[in-house]
């Protein structure tokens, strides 16, 4: 039931580049909050377990740190709240920090969706034709941290049980260090293994094709067009109009004209599309199942 992730890899990468690219360059809390909401719902529809709550907590901590850090380093702004050691803390710098945090969280959130949806086979498919080495590097680096984490827990639990039988005076720290050292050995060996295995199978050779199940359908065409068009419209908007907030010395909202309104509607459509597709699929699935 992974409807959105069943799209063609080219459509997916165009869509995600557009969303992440736009949310990276907008300092606009309204757009950022919309993006975060869409991204989080989509991520929840994909994972559906408790790790989702952990992720939200992580975002909250990052957001808090960024919001607190900005007023420490920036003292610009018209409304001074108070002075700490004769340096002003202003309302504008706190709000700027908050908006920067929202922007950061929206990018992180969409990247986590991206890494969930773009599995290694899709990345290899996309890059094996143009840049085989780059494709392999991207796919293995995306996989690297989760794989290491998983392997670490395996090694750690084995070591713990071994030690409980033999000697009991090994500290927790020493145990962790021991497990980490074997993890590094495993990682190095694994890298060498993967690369030699890939090259012995002729990866990256000319005229070599590989089997895949990706079919380019009409909906992929639509999504590529939609993503690319919205990105071009966005570039046009930041060039000639202003969709970003101005924070210093006082907060100025972007002009509410037709262009801005259209951009907001397009943005809402884009970020809600993946979540909407998943929810629609879910409802359809539930309805069909209940009839049986």
């Amino acid at each position, binding site marked *: 039931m992974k409807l959105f992730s069943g799209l063609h890899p080219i459509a997916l990468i165009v869509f995600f580049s557009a969303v992440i690219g736009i949310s990276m360059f907008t300092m606009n809390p309204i757009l950022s909050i919309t993006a975060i909401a869409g991204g989080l719902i989509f991520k929840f529809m994909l994972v559906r377990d408790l790790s989702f709550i952990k992720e939200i907590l992580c975002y909250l901590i990052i957001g808090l740190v960024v919001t607190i850090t900005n007023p420490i380093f920036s003292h610009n702004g018209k409304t001074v709240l108070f002075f*700490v050691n004769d340096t*002003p803390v202003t309302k504008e710098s706190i709000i700027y920090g908050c908006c920067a945090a929202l922007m950061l969280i929206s990018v992180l959130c969409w990247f986590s969706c991206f890494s969930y949806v773009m599995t290694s086979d899709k990345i290899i498919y996309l890059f094996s034709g143009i840049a085989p080495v780059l494709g392999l590097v991207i796919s293995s680096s995306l996989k690297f941290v989760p794989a290491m984490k998983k392997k670490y827990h395996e090694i750690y639990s084995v070591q713990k049980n071994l030690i409980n039988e033999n000697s009991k005076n090994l500290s927790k720290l020493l145990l962790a260090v021991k497990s980490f050292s074997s993890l590094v050995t495993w990682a190095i060996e694994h890298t060498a293994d993967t690369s030699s295995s890939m090259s012995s199978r002729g990866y990256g050779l000319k005229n070599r094709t590989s089997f895949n199940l990706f079919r380019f359908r009409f909906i992929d065409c639509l999504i590529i067009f939609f993503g690319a068009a919205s990105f071009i419209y966005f570039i046009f908007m930041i060039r000639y109009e202003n969709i970003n907030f101005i924070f210093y010395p006082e907060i100025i909202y972007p002009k509410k004209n037709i262009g801005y309104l259209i951009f907001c509607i397009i943005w809402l459509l884009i970020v809600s599309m993946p979540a909407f597709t998943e929810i629609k699929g879910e409802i359809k699935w539930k309805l069909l199942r209940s009839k049986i």
Partner: protein
Amino acid sequence: MKKIFMAFIVAFVTLFSACSIKSKEEYYNYSESNISGGDSVTIEITCSSVLDNMNKLDSGLEDYIPDDGIILEKTEYQIKENDTVYSVLSRAVRENQIQIEVQGSDENALSTVYVEGINYLYEFSCGSESGWIYKVNDEYAEKGCDSFNLKDGDEIQWIYICSQEDFNG
């Protein structure tokens, strides 16, 4: 876990007690005792070069540029021994309630105070070559503003420049 939590609280309290928090009124009410009859200097803060380069100015700042480009008119200040250009500037902006942001001498490689912005007008706010410089007796000083010692009758000018030509001309 409890120990870590306690350590955090202790660190936070120490940090908090090292800070002195003042309200806006308290901060600006302060004034240094003026010794009358001593040596005196004059200080002036201008940004008239921005008026010729309004198209390069960051949006949102237009209302904060004075029409004649003078942020602080020529004002006389009594100086004590060891007073520098920076100490006079910080006293002047505090008494006239002008916003300022400086980079302390411990924060940059030149180990001298660097004035980033006065009156919301920052470095790079008006083109990529813009920023604050100062003149003493109509001459550019080759020193940081916190190491330039003043003598009686010096005339300080803080000038905002928009390009290298302003500096040379």
